[in-house]
């Protein structure tokens, strides 16, 4: 039986990778993907716990997380398309009209 903590470490690692992606990549789409990574990390935690606790709540939660991921992806990508229409770019550091 694999200790739950290992899953936690895995989740944390994935989470970290996602965060790094968010902070470093210029391409908004990739940033969005990194966020998906974070959500997956969360799911790993949830499932690990639900497995440990012998209760499906965690899995249900995970399902909702996935739902949310889908919704966010849809809206986000829509926004990105609009952005691309407006500015011909998808680079995060080129959208700086609004500052100070």
């Amino acid at each position, binding site marked *: *039986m*694999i*200790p*739950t*903590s*290992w*899953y936690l*470490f*895995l989740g*944390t*690692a*994935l989470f*970290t*990778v*996602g*965060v*790094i*992606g968010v*902070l*470093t*990549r*210029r*391409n908004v*789409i*990739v940033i969005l*993907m*990194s966020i998906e*990574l974070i959500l*997956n990390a969360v*799911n*790993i935690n949830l*499932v*690990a716990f*639900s*497995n*440990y*606790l*012998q209760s*499906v*709540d965690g*899995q*249900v939660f*995970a*399902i*909702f997380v*996935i*739902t949310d*991921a*889908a*919704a966010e*992806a*849809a*809206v986000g*990508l*829509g*926004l990105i*398309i609009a952005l691309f229409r407006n500015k011909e770019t*998808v*680079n995060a*550091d080129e959208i700086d009209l609004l500052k100070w």
Partner: protein
Amino acid sequence: MNLQYIAFFTLAAAALISAVMVITRRNPVHSVMWLIVTLFSVGGIFLTQRAEFLFAVQIILYVGGIMVLFLFVVMLVNIDVAVKQAEFSRQWPLALVTVGVLTAELGYGFYVAVHKGLNLPEVTAAAATASPGNTELVAQSLYQTYALPVEIASILLLVAMVGAVLMAKKQL
């Protein structure tokens, strides 16, 4: 039963490596591909934890749905430009350091936690004994315990739909 261990380690390694690939590929398309790998391996991890239904959802909804969407969009915005441009934002070293520290802190926290034992709550006897197929359990709790979230989720998806259309449609 070291089969479990082997499975875990292979899947974990795959997930992590592919994740790193996702955020390091210059070409967004490649990133998408690697992300799919990640999702698969995470799905695998679900499977090793007797979350078959979730595994199915992961594959069908995530890989089959969201990723395709991503792929479309990546194709829509011209990649060749993106490929030529600088890949990382100017703050990347700073970011790496910060995240490094954060990870260290988190890692230390978990290490301490594990060291002292997570002392997670006791497994409820009911849950332990009764274990019909995972899917039924999920279905039951979804439509009994979590009926309300399901309702709200429907609104969520509706909003997402409307929003996506609103944003992406050429003119209304």
